[in-house]
C-alpha cells in the first residue's frame, strides 16, 4: 500500500530526490511528514499538482490511494 510523490524541475533539487514513496492517506498528513522546508515549497502558489497525470485544481481534500502518483509542477520553461 504505497503512493508516490514526484518532484519536477527545481523542486527535485529542493527535495534532493525526484520521487518519494509515501504511505496512502490525506495529502495534509503526507505533507506533514516531510521536511517543513520542502512542504512549504510544494505548497507554493505557483506550484501546480497533477494526480496520475491529470492536473488538479486544488490540493485540499485529496486522499492518496494505493498506487496514486502525485506530481508537483513548478512553472514550465521549455523549448
Amino acid at each position, binding site marked *: 500500500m504505497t503512493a508516490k510523490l514526484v518532484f519536477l*524541475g527545481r523542486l527535485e533539487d529542493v527535495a534532493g530526490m525526484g520521487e518519494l514513496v509515501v504511505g496512502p492517506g490525506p495529502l495534509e498528513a503526507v505533507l506533514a511528514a516531510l521536511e517543513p522546508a520542502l512542504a512549504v515549497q510544494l505548497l507554493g502558489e505557483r506550484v501546480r499538482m497533477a494526480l496520475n497525470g491529470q492536473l488538479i485544481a486544488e490540493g485540499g481534500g485529496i486522499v492518496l490511494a494505493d498506487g496514486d502518483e502525485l506530481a508537483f509542477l513548478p512553472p514550465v*520553461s521549455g523549448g
Partner: protein
Amino acid sequence: MADVRLLGEAFSAMDELAVFTAAHPEAGGLVSFLGQVRQEGGAHAVEALELKHYAAMTLPGMTALAAATEARWRLDGLLILHRYGVMYPGDPIVLVAAAAPHRRDAFAAADFAMDHLKSQSWFWKREKTARGWRWIEPRPDDHRDLARW
C-alpha cells in the same frame, strides 16, 4: 497524422526536416522552426542545458498540442520534435515543421505550436554557466506570446 516525438538523444534537425519535406510534395509551403542551444562566448556563456520532462504528462501534452494545431489550420503535415536530457551548444532542442497548401497556414501553425511548447508544455530547463547550474524561470514574453492566440 502529426509526427510527435520526445527524444532523449541528439537528433539531426536537417535530416528530420529533409525527411518531412520529402514526405510532403503536395504541400505548396513548409515552415520550420529550429531551436538550438546558443553557441556564445564570454563569462555568461551557457556551457550546457538540461531539460527535464514528466513521463506521465509531457508527451501526452505534446500530442494534444499537435491535435489542436491540426484542428485549427489546414495542414498537409505537422512535425513536433523536442529533446529532453543534457544538451550542449549547437545541439537542437526543438524542431517544429508545418506543411500546408497555403503559406499563412504553415506559418501560423508553426508559430502557434512553438508558443505553446515554450510556455505550456511540461518541460523544466536549467542552464550551466561558469557559475554552475541554474533553473530557468519562464519569461514574461512567453506568456505574452501565448495571449496572441
